């Protein structure tokens, strides 16, 4: 089990009801973290539309997560 700080943005923040939370989960990749938050908060957004960053660096869904990492979950962006 790893301690992962998860930060939510926009729609994900509203689903979670919090800006961030620390989860103690069995996760190998960023996708595992996303799945865990989905079960917790109910978003059905597929990863293909979303982006993820680990410790402030853009990452892929199969990027590995380590104990103590901060995972940022970005719903589909809409700048401009």
């Amino acid at each position, binding site marked *: 089990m790893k301690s992962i700080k998860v930060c939510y*943005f926009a729609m994900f923040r509203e689903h979670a009801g919090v800006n961030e939370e620390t989860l103690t989960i069995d996760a190998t990749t960023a996708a595992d973290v996303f799945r865990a938050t989905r079960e917790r908060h109910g978003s*059905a*957004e597929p990863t293909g539309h979303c982006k993820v960053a680990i410790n402030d660096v853009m990452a892929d869904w199969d990027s590995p997560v380590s104990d103590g990492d901060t995972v940022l979950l970005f719903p589909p*962006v809409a*700048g401009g």
Partner: protein
Amino acid sequence: MAIRYCCFRLLPGVELISVAASPIDPDELRKQLFDPAAGAYCSFEGWVRNENDGQTVLRLEYEAYEPLALTEGEEILAEAKRQFLCQTAHCAHRTGMLEIGDCAVWVGVAAPHRDEAFRACRYIIDQLKVRLPIWKKEHYVDGHSGWVNCERCAAAT
């Protein structure tokens, strides 16, 4: 002559990109791009409009994750300068609550000739829209609101 375009001149006090809650001042930003070797200037602005997908919009709310929006924005500007040999390219994006007519995003490019200026400006706004961690919530006249591009998430809750 070509050597001129190989370095990015980061003038002191001039930001390449800003992501901030304060209003965008296009005229002030434009003046920062002046270069005696630039013959062409192209700018783009996104304005908050009163309608989207048939719904009347009252205002827009932008949320950004600034640390990564800035890094990603600077990368996009650097790509544009490399690809289109433009001299300077800056951009600014608003956060917070915006009213109809407010400038939500500004892009400005100075280049030797117009083709490069137009293409670089277009590249930057196209990339900003899909790559920057920025989200837009529309507030409608009927009291509802919705995150743009997130209808699927909304449907699932």
